[in-house]
């Protein structure tokens, strides 16, 4: 076996990554030969080389020629790149894992807020490292469309290490796996590492969700994992739209239903427009299927990252259709998405009046709630309560809004 393999990325403008060239051969007699080029060699050269030696020894490799072309990669990136290279050359079940960052052990819930979820290409460490500081509700480490077909294998190691070693500051830790059946293999790299939610692209049937869950369960049992792993199927085809409701209610772990419009419009032989007339049916189907199943309907991404005004219009339209959130592909979109999915001042004031009237009616022991001359039905109260809760969560009003309003 005298094969040379390479992993990682190098070149102009590449940051936080490295390019590994590895050759293992019995004919090498001098132990490991490790070459390193790096802008930070004088500061970190010995620590990078020691990490590489440790990994080679972990896999009991005796004679390796290793060339690391570093562009400022963090240890978890170097480890992912080298492990992928080693596994292209030898067969082993062992995994080289750096210690799991304690900050990453948090849980999420079925009704956690999912206004925004930031897509991060699964093979691009520079975009992952600071993603959490922009405070998206979720980060999606994407193994599907954002990763070139030839890089799919090594991206899995990077995503696994990112789940373990990047602090996403409380954002829901999501991974978009590949389409079935390729996505099944991705699970081994994410399920044991506290992924909160898995996005299943191109979902077309409840059977796909069941297959996914069976495989998740197998891995959970093997690793003794008890945490719930949520699922967000993405509806991206005509068949998916037609089967939206059976998908939405296929499992208690399906907490939201997303729509992906690029693939969907291609599937129905049209193109995506800003007006969105072509996707009105599909979006409404997803909203209705999700609401019928009691889960969150989530909208597609808005792809013009320079036009924040158009994004705002898009979010308001999406909210009016009934969606609870949408994907984003640039951190600057997050704040616009949060501000516009959150209730506006008029909605908050109206909700306050309804909730106050309800509480007062309760205090007086009245069974019927009235606001002025209008009767208020229980679902209206429920919606108002939800609006108030979101307003509190997004910092638009304080937890003690009722007392504060009375003092004014």
């Amino acid at each position, binding site marked *: 076996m005298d094969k040379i393999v390479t992993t990682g990325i190098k070149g102009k403008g590449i940051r936080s990554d490295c390019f590994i060239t590895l050759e293992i051969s019995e004919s090498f007699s001098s132990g490991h030969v490790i070459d390193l080029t790096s802008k930070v060699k004088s500061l970190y050269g010995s620590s990078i080389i020691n990490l590489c030696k440790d990994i080679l020894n972990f896999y009991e490799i005796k004679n390796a020629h290793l060339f690391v072309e570093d562009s400022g990669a963090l240890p978890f990136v170097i480890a992912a790149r080298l492990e992928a290279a080693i596994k292209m050359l030898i067969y082993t079940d062992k995994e080289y894992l750096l210690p799991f960052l304690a900050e990453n052990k948090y849980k999420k819930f079925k009704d956690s807020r999912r206004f925004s979820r930031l897509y991060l290409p699964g093979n691009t460490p520079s975009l992952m490292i*600071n993603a959490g*500081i*922009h405070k998206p509700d979720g980060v999606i480490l994407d193994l599907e469309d954002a990763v070139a077909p030839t890089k799919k294998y090594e991206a899995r190691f990077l995503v696994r290490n990112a789940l373990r070693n990047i602090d996403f500051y409380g954002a829901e830790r999501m991974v978009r796996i590949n389409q079935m059946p390729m996505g099944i293999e991705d699970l081994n790299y994410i399920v044991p590492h506290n992924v909160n939610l898995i996005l299943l692209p191109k979902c077309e049937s409840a059977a796909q969700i069941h297959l996914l869950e069976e495989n998740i369960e197998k891995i959970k049992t093997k690793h003794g994992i008890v945490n719930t792993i949520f699922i967000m199927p993405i509806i991206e085809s005509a068949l998916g739209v037609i089967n939206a409701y059976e998908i939405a209610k296929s499992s208690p772990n399906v907490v939201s239903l997303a729509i992906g419009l690029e693939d969907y419009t291609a599937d129905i032989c049209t193109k995506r427009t800003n007006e969105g007339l072509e996707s009105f049916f599909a979006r409404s189907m997803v909203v209705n299927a999700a609401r019928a199943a009691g889960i969150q309907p989530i909208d597609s991404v808005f792809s013009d990252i320079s036009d924040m005004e158009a994004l705002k219009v898009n979010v308001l339209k999406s909210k009016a259709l009934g969606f609870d959130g949408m994907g984003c592909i*640039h*951190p*600057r979109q997050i704040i616009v998405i949060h501000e516009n999915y959150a209730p506006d001042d008029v909605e908050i004031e109206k909700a306050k009046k309804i909730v106050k009237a309800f509480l007062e009616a309760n205090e007086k022991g009245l069974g019927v709630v009235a606001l002025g001359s209008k009767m208020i039905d229980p679902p209206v109260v429920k919606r108002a309560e939800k609006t108030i809760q979101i307003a509190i969560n997004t910092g638009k009003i304080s937890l003690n809004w009722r007392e504060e309003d009375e003092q004014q």
Partner: protein
Amino acid sequence: MNNNKILEQKINAIGRKVPLMANGQAQIPYMGVGKYRPDGFKHAPRISTCADYPADGNKLVSDLREALIRCGLRNGMTISTHHHFRNGDLIAVQIFDIAHELGIKDLVWFPSASFPCQEVLTKYLEDGTINRIEGSMNGALGKFCSEGKMTGIGVLRSHGGRYQAVQDGEVEIDIAVIAAPTADAFGNANGVNGSAACGLLGFALADSQYADKVIVVTDNLVPFPCIPWQIQGNYVDYTVVVDRVGIPEKIISGTTEVTKSPDRLLLAEMTSQFCVEAGIVKENFSFQAGAGGTALSIGIYFAEY
């Protein structure tokens, strides 16, 4: 590195070995915060007399070469320039072209910063026209210094430290050449008017006050008095008119573009929020942002506030 650069060294307060002499000047190793108390008087230029200047105050001479000769340009002098034109500067290189033609050697170039447009000066560092740069050394000039090719020892100062070094006489400027977008024949000058307007000329202010000789070079000569003036004509010895002093479009170099990086924009936004909450952001307040995309972006958020 030349052997004559290896001099006696001492460990300073933060444990770093530093030389006690550089370029023949005694150096003071860092002693810790508040430990060093400077002594003595501020530097002052030589007294000049009105007997040496035309009675009508017209200090115009034919060209930069003439002005430099009249300033007594000779071997070993320290020549200062400012960097308000950043990568659009057209004057600094001319000075050393002239010095080279005149066969002058061992000059010290003391810019407030250097830019890629001045890369050609490496040839004068090589042939001995320039002994060393005291100021920022970037790009090709920086590489030249880093590779130990410069004859003298490069000295880096912060912008504030440069001003202080001029005031305290740590650096004695023999000739300050101040490129000015607008000036009158007496030497009053500003950076805000004229086709090459670059903003303020703050970095040249200390040079004008403390240099032994001061030349103002402009491409927009206005009748006396040039209003407003930032450089006061009283300090100026000669004025020169050229076709062009600088290219204002090139003021926007790599470090003066607003950043597009979302991470850096977030830093700028948080900094602006900090200033707002500290109560220092008011209508019509003034602030200075350093070069660098992140710092410059803070202005966007102040405007939004």
